[in-house]
């Protein structure tokens, strides 16, 4: 029996949704353009299979899409809420932050909001400032929310299923440019939320990253290996709850931590991980993210917002050299 088959990042998500919708009639999809498969093909064929009652085309009304998702969840459904890109989810922010995230708590556990809000994240090539943000840290800051950033085909299948089964409001952040990513998919693989994956073992430095930035980091690991530096690359996968145990165990072995993400470095989630590791282990830590600039349109401007392989390598080497000397 062939367990593993080739699939795309978007196809893996479609398959995950298909299986969850078959298994659980409470799962419905709502959002703009979902009936035609979604703009990234991430709902392809689902309306044909499950009908317009369960794969619901909506107006361009992000607040109502997200808020209706909350109402549906409270009334017994398990909605998948499509926000198109995370940048547009900002139009439904009250509904995510004040309603979905806090409902269970502020009503004393009377209700639950089992809802998966898909908010594709990250720099979308040549799409400029309003379509290129990486906002996982915003949502990670909010009690009540789970935040997932799948970086592989398998994870986009397994984590979407886990998100739908979790019973929590989940901010599910696929990357805007990973849809065509090809990889092996084993439908029997389960990945629990909150569990990181070690993508490459190494003994000199722990490198934590997620989503598309993993690809840059993997190349950087190769380059560093050629220089004799063995890096352990960890895919965090879930931003909240984040896998402290895996990260701390790895750091305890390697003695050095670098966190790299596509999101802006200042107040990014890498700072949280680096601070935690520094507090717990007292080892040298670094974080690397984008500069605090909006993403520009022209290639040269956009490139400034990205974290490059060279920057990752340089940061890794700097981390191994210890703290920067202060010049006064």
């Amino acid at each position, binding site marked *: 029996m062939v367990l593993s088959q080739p699939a795309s990042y978007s196809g893996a998500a479609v398959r995950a949704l298909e299986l969850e919708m078959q298994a659980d009639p409470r799962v419905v999809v709502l959002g703009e353009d979902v009936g035609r498969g979604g703009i990234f093909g991430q709902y392809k064929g689902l309306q044909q299979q499950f009908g317009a009652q369960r794969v619901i085309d909506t107006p361009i*009304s992000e607040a109502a899409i997200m*808020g209706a998702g*909350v*109402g549906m969840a409270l*009334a017994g459904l398990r909605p998948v809420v499509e926000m198109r890109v995370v940048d547009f989810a900002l139009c439904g922010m*009250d509904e995510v932050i004040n309603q979905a995230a806090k409902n269970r708590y*502020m*009503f004393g556990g009377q209700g639950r909001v089992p809802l998966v809000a898909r908010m594709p994240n990250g720099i979308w090539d040549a799409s400029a400032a309003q379509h290129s943000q990486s906002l996982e840290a915003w949502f990670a800051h909010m009690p009540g929310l789970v935040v997932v950033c799948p970086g592989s085909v398998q994870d986009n299948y397994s984590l979407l299923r886990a998100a739908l089964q979790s019973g929590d409001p989940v901010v599910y952040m696929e990357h805007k440019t990973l849809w065509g990513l090809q990889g092996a998919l084993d439908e029997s693989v389960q990945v629990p939320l909150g569990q990181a994956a070690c993508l490459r073992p190494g003994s000199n430095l722990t490198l934590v990253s997620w989503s598309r930035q993993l690809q840059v980091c993997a190349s950087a690991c190769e380059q560093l290996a050629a220089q004799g530096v063995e890096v352990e690359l960890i895919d965090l996968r879930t931003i909240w709850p984040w896998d402290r145990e895996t990260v701390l165990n790895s750091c305890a072995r390697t003695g050095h931590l670098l966190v790299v993400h596509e999101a802006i470095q200042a107040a990014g989630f890498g700072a949280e991980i680096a601070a935690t590791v520094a507090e717990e282990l007292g080892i040298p830590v670094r974080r690397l993210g984008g500069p605090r600039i909006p993403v520009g349109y022209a290639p040269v401007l956009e490139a400034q917002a990205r974290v490059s392989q060279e920057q990752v390598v340089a940061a890794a080497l700097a981390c191994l050299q210890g703290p920067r000397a202060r010049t006064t």
Partner: protein
Amino acid sequence: MNRDDSLNTLRQLYRCMSRIRAFEDAAEIVSQGGVSAYSKTADGSAKVRGPLHLSTGQEAVPAGVCAHLKADDLLTSTHRGHGHTLAKGADLARMMGELYGKASGFNGGKGGSMHIADFSVGMLGANGVVAAGLPIAVGAAHAQKLQGKPAITVCFFGDGAINRGPFLESLNWARIHQLPVLFVCEDNRWSATTASRAMIAGEGASARSASLGIAASQVNGNEVWQVHALAGELIAQIRAGGGPRLLHAITYRLKGHVSVDPAAYRDPQEVLQAQQLDPLLKARAHYQQLGGLLADLQAIDDAAAAEVAQAMAAADAAPWPTAAAAYTDIQSSGDGQWF
């Protein structure tokens, strides 16, 4: 309806209003000094802390509407939600417990007045954000339709909410999907401390609703028998599959925005006039016109006062939530990870 039926119905409606009034009057007193606002400072002595939004003067709207609701009908509310919660059938004593912040409250002290709720009777919560209940109501009604349930959702909101985007988004959504939802605009004429009429372009809730193809009906929101009659018609239409309706109830907020707000920004004449149109006074007069005896209603008031006194004593005696409760009911994934 014959005279006895009319009197019976009016007595029931009056009882609902009387309990809301007694509840809020009592809470108002014990909330003084409970929040720093309007040039006053919280002094720590109040039993009910934080902003307490009273619906005094608006009782006829929830009473008249909710009399038509069944247990599996759902309801979303506003920050001014005590009346909706009581009218939907929530236990008064547990509501008072929540206002006191006690473990005996519906939310175990996690919500207070602004998040008063009793999900067990379909009351999906007051909401601290203006217009936030509208999309939730629409989603709940959408679920009811998909589930093939005969139930409906009622969505209360104020006149201030019609200037927020979710109002438009939600009414549009309800109409295109023909959802079983009754939108009830409680037009109390004040948006916090600002007169709404200066802030609303056009003719307001009814006109905006009609422009989206949702039939809107206006009613004197201080005459409970009128609200009851009209809401009954609209709810019957919705239950028959007619899609959404909007009830625009014109009423008046007799108190300030919150209980410590003296509302000095209002014309005293306006308030004086409004006090004479108090829905409880009107209901009493109507009851007498129908041949009823005021003593019947006085007995209801007395019972409500006694019930509230008992609820306050119980809330006072109830334990506070434990500190550990601050860490429960947040999320399942990552439960226990606070840092």
